[in-house]
């Protein structure tokens, strides 16, 4: 009798390399690495078929620590390398790891085009609102007034919102997580992996050395319940310690507002139900900022469409003749003449 041997089930440890991890002690990247390695085991990823691609920055060291294929490239351009790689071999399972400077500053253009093309891969943006590897300058996601070596009197420019940018660029999967929330993050990563097309995940990541505690205003133990909302498709958008708070759509202003169930005549029926296929809701959620509104976490938007690599594959297939074409014929197509 034939016995089909199931592929050996890999554990998170099987996805760890023998390289010494060189992030600063206490860096949020450790937690994310752990979460990713757990996700890879959970989803049954095959190491030989998985590739981590990165640009430059602290986050970009990630591939060296994951026992799959990995390509540590140049600053901001990881999306372009990944696109070329996917065109070479559409069967590969690609993860791009990036930071707020890599993805939104030097690489903003490439991220925009990756998202609009919808290349099938997972894009993880570790957002720590600071430049780590270059020693602490402010980044495009730093809040206005951020003091840094290059902005001793506080930064002047307006910060970018990664999730809002992604939605604007045409991303079809946008999710958020927090480095330290290991209960939540692997689930989000697994959803990202399951989605066909570019899956954009923003991970709030604490930089212990240059921006410690920058997310405390919504990740701190005392405020988390009131300043975070974990969104789930088909479920009311409620939050708070006992789920007593909720988001209601104000149809006059077309904006979300925080309400308390049971106060001012608000009932559960008034609470907006999350529809992850609805881009308007996703956009409203992505725009929310503390302290007036909670930070939306989880899958904000998921509306699958055909991926660029699939379209290329289809086009190639439709033009590929059954037999290998004769190269000599190609050279002789069109006007030719013979000299005897």
């Amino acid at each position, binding site marked *: 009798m034939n016995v089909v041997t199931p592929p050996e089930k890999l554990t998170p440890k099987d996805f760890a390399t023998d390289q010494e991890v060189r992030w600063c002690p206490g860096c949020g990247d450790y937690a994310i690495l752990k979460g990713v390695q757990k996700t890879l085991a959970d989803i049954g990823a095959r*190491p030989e*078929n998985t*590739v981590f691609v990165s640009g430059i920055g602290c986050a970009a060291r990630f591939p060296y620590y994951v026992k799959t294929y990995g*390509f540590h490239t140049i600053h901001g351009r990881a999306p372009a390398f990944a*696109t070329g790689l996917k065109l*070479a071999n559409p*069967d*590969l399972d690609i993860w791009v790891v990036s930071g707020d400077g890599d993805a939104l500053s030097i690489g903003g253009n490439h991220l925009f085009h990756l998202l609009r093309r919808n290349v099938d891969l997972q894009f993880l943006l570790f957002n720590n609102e600071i430049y780590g590897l270059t020693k602490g300058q402010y980044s495009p996601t730093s809040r206005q007034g951020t003091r840094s070596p290059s902005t001793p009197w506080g930064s002047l420019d307006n910060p970018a919102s990664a999730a809002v940018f992604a939605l604007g660029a045409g991303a079809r999967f946008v999710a958020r997580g927090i480095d330290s929330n290991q209960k939540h993050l692997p689930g989000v990563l697994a959803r990202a992996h399951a989605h066909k097309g570019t899956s954009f995940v923003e991970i709030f990541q604490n930089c212990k050395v240059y921006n410690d505690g920058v997310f405390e205003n919504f990740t701190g133990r005392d405020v988390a319940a009131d300043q975070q909302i974990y969104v789930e498709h088909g479920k009311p958008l409620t939050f708070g310690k006992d789920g007593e708070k909720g988001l209601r759509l104000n149809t006059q202003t077309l904006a979300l507002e925080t309400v308390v169930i049971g106060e001012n005549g608000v009932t559960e029926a008034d609470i907006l139900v999350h529809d992850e296929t609805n881009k308007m809701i996703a956009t409203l959620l992505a725009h929310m900022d503390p302290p007036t509104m909670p930070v939306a976490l989880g899958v904000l938007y998921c509306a699958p469409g055909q991926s660029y690599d699939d379209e290329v594959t289809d086009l190639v297939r439709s033009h590929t003749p059954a037999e290998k074409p004769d190269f000599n014929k190609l050279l002789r197509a069109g*006007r030719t003449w013979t000299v005897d």
Partner: protein
Amino acid sequence: MSNTALAEKPTDPSQRETVESAVVRFAGDSGDGMQLTGGQFTLATAFAGNDLSTFPDFPAEIRAPAGTTFGVSSFQINFGSRVIKTAGDAFDMLIAMNPAALKVELGGLKQGGVIIADTGSFGERDLRKAGYDSNPLEDGSLQGYHLVALDISKLTMEAVKDTGLSKQEALRCKNMWTLGFVYWMYGRDRKPTADWLIAKFGKRPDVAAANVAAMDAGHTVAETMELPDGVHGFHVDAADIAPGTYRTVTGAEALAWGLAAGTHLADIKMVFASYPITPASQLLHSLSKMIDHNVVTFQAEDEIAAACAAIGASFGGSLGVTSSSGPGIALKTEAIGLAISTELPMIIVNSQRAGPSTGMPTKTEQSDLYQAVLGRNADSPLCVLAARSPADCFDVAIEAVRIAIKYMTPVFVLTDGYIGNAAEPWNIPDINDYAKIPVNFRTDPEGFHPFLRDDDTLARVWAVPGTPGLEHRIGGIERDYDSGNISYDPGNHQKMTDTRFAKIAGIAKDIPDQGVEDGNTSGKLAVVGWGSTYGPISRAVANLRAQGLDVSHIHLRHIWPFPENLGDLLKGFEQVLVPEMNHGQLVNVLRAEYLVPAEGLNKVSGQPFKIIEIEDAIRARLET
């Protein structure tokens, strides 16, 4: 003009003046269809069995204001019964569709040459736009030339009046009327052009018919009118051409086919990633049509992304190719450094143009040799090849694929705007005559690390994602020689830098010794060229050797590394002259490498060398 149809004139060759070669330049407004006209004349000339070389010369503006001198678009062809190596110096015949064309091009016409001008386009306004105070067709300023002044606009309108075309559409047939006229002058067959017109305007049979009618009318007028004194039909014998199947080919086409031939011989996919830029875009267009030949093209969001996508594709086991012109290549530089550092195969095509910065995008230059050989941060050697002519692009591209794969290195292919656009007849090769290009993807996990090297070539292994057991990480950070892991060890960096140099230098052992194109292997003067100066140098050297001068022509395909014997070869000559369309680049690399007293002959006008310019420089050195 009304003086038509006086007598039937002879069309048979014996009644025409036989010439060994002729240079014709079609010049008109950007919207006059001169490139298309020249292209058809080229085909008809190829079918007539002449050897030929063309030079399309057009403005960067798509439609510059009509009638202006900067909107003039020209097409030059040199054809003959002998071997033709350049598009020709001065021309024998100038077709001027308007005053601006006459103004811009007259300086290039031989004394006594023929001007065919459309008087219908020489109105007061047209003259003013071109900067003429009086009409040159009438004021005697063209004495010394043979002028055939015809109201081509009116004659065209008459020829097509029965086709029902609007006036605007009818006037657009002017170029075909003119082509018909010139066809008669050189005894060319009209049928291929008629067939082509019918195919091109398949959906507009009225337009096709009008164009054919215009061409026929132009031909008839030439045949029947009384031409001015000294103007008559010519005959050019078929050239003695090697047997074979031929086509005309531009450099961009030959390069596209050559790259695809290379990946065909290697039996791997090509991923061609590029961003549109003049004059390189034609390569993207040509390859985009080759989807059925295992070629995937990707129009990236910018030059950088194009280079990066190509490298990503090579990491994935395809051959990544990117292409641009100088300013775009500059943007790709950092990515090329990564391909050098991670030792991945890659081809970068540079269709050089006049610079710096935007420069003159449609004009040719050879000023990116330094950029290719030296233009990167750090010690970052790679291989550089240069094509000498449109047809040569095919073999150079195949050689680039071979070296990129065998040595796991980026390879630059230098071509230029002139080669890219110019056409010549091409004896189409048989792909089966080319050696296969072996690709050895690593599959064995035993003893594997990503920077294992071939003892002979020093190339590292090509291990592609998807291969079980070979999972590895590579990147731009320096790697340990013995494991491929990140290393900041000082001795290791020295060793890796030395190895990268040795690998590229070793390519010299794997390429043919440098030969001499024409002349002796030692002597008084060697003229050393590279790229598109091939045509004018070879003609100039041949002319002067025929006059007994001791001069030899050496032409380089391998720009880096140089062939192993090049230094010794150059040292056999008393003088070395290096004509280049730049301010002196190859000349300085040769001086630096070999300590030879090479001298530059430099031209940066956006125009190719004329034969006479090179002849003068040679004479100046040999006739003292």
